């Protein structure tokens, strides 16, 4: 039985003509889990989300939401969706958009008014509740879209890059709200290409590339699974030759990051000693020096590049 499972995906596949957009993917999301779905643009994230929310039909495979077939009325009734593009009705006020969604989810009017007031106050839109949505800023529209998804108090929330292109304040507000919802036991499925966002928010992430699932694991485990991606970030008081840095024993790759250098290695301890020797022998002074574990971005790059090489 699916007890404890919020989302189950088996062999899900979608073609767009010749293009295989989603290629026989499978994963499960537990109830109450914050699940990230990571991938570069065009990897198949939105197509997968649209199949799970019943907007488009899969060509093969099955997916279920809380044991209901994805796309069925029952599955849609227990889910809330924040699509990639803010899509409230511009010719209606924020409040009227919420009332419309409440009607479409069969929520009694008095409860709808109570929830709408509370949601709009929480997300800082209440003072503009009667303004037409077309007069809202992008951040306000996206915050309203989150309210629209929450009006039915759904058990499972799907979000497609909800903070993409938003101002810092709106993005922060949305992330805080998502963390609060997750803390209250809601299952959250978030697609993003922002590694830092996934790292901050998600219990587990799936990485999708060119329609195929590359990995599914906790962000920390994915980072640790990438060998050879440790690095040392160093800055000197003077200009250095990148070739000279690359020639230091133990350095695999050199990257310039502003006024700093990031040196990738398999043995950060030995590299720190070598860097000290290098600076002494070249009359340089080390201004800052940090050892870094692989980031989720490093893991993502390593995993997606490995897949491309294997292909």
């Amino acid at each position, binding site marked *: 039985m699916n007890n404890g499972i919020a989302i189950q995906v088996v062999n899900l596949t979608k073609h767009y003509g010749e293009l295989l957009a989603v290629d026989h993917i499978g994963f499960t999301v537990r109830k109450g889990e914050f699940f990230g779905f990571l991938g570069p643009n065009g990897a198949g994230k939105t197509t997968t989300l649209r199949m799970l929310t*019943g*907007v488009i039909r899969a060509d093969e495979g099955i997916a279920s939401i809380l044991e209901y077939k994805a796309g069925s*009325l029952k599955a849609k009734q227990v889910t809330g969706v924040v699509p990639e593009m803010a899509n*409230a009705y511009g010719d209606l006020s924020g409040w009227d958009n919420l009332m*419309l969604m409440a009607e*479409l989810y*069969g929520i009694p009017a008095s409860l709808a008014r109570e929830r709408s007031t509370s949601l709009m106050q929480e997300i800082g839109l209440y003072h503009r509740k009667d303004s037409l949505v077309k007069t809202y800023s992008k951040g306000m529209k996206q915050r309203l879209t989150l309210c*629209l998804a929450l009006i039915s108090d759904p058990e499972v929330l799907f979000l497609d890059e909800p903070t993409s292109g938003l101002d810092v304040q709106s993005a922060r507000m949305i992330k805080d709200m998502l963390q609060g919802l997750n803390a209250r036991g809601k299952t959250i499925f978030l697609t993003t290409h922002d590694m830092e966002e996934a790292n901050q928010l998600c219990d587990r992430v799936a990485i999708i590339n060119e329609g195929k699932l590359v990995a599914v694991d906790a962000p920390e485990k994915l980072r640790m699974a990438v060998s050879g991606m440790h690095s040392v970030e160093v800055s000197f008081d003077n200009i250095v030759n990148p070739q000279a840095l690359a020639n230091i024993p133990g350095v695999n790759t050199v990257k310039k990051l502003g006024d700093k250098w990031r040196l990738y290695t398999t043995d950060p301890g030995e590299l720190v000693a070598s860097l000290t020797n290098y600076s002494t022998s070249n009359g340089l002074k080390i201004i800052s020096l940090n050892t870094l574990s692989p980031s989720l971005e490093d893991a993502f790059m390593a995993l997606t590049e490995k897949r491309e090489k294997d292909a």
Partner: protein
Amino acid sequence: MPDIATILQQARRSLAIARKDMRIYYAKGPVIIFGVLFPVFLFLSFTIGRQLSIDFMIPGLLGMILFFTATSVSPIVIPWEAQARTLERLMSCPVRIETIIVGDILASFAFGAGISLVPIILGLFLGITISSPFIFALAVILAALCFASLGTVFSIPPTNMPSTVNMIASVVKFPVVFISGIFIPLNELPAWGQAVAYISPLTYFTDIARYSIQGQGHLPIAVDILALLGFTTLFLAAAMKLHQRTMPRRI
């Protein structure tokens, strides 16, 4: 087959969609231009200067207005919403595609039936009498539903451009007006003209309107009513079936 509770639930949600359409789309430019202004001017251009009685003109004007208004809202809602990306929101809500279609049809039906009161009241003011008001009212309701359903057939091709759908609709609507007994009574048409007229649902409504206002129609009333029912069923079935295929392709 959905159970009664689901059907009632979806019917309520169709009404919510219809109310939303009324608030957003009734005042849109293409609806006012193609739905209201166009039929009035087209009718005037064909009637001014001709010696026609009010009893002849009002059924024609009513047919024109009802046909254009009831087919003005339903074709543009889906492409408009696909373009504005609100269709994806509707499709992710717990509503069936049929529920969305029925909502759009109801909004278009109400627009057509509501605006058609204008030529009826104008006619009554000018002295026409309606001999069988019940049949006449039934015909207006049935025809508004039929034409609103036809409107959703126009929007089946998965384009997200309302102007393209309006173009498709115009290609059908203009010839239909000329073959439906609006400007020339059916009994004055040659046999081939009458044969062509019978493929237009507007013919049957105009015939009932002429029967109710002029006192005589060309066909038996039962045939007119059954034909309107048949066309409505056909358009509804085609819209329900084919939008299932094309709606996901708009996203």
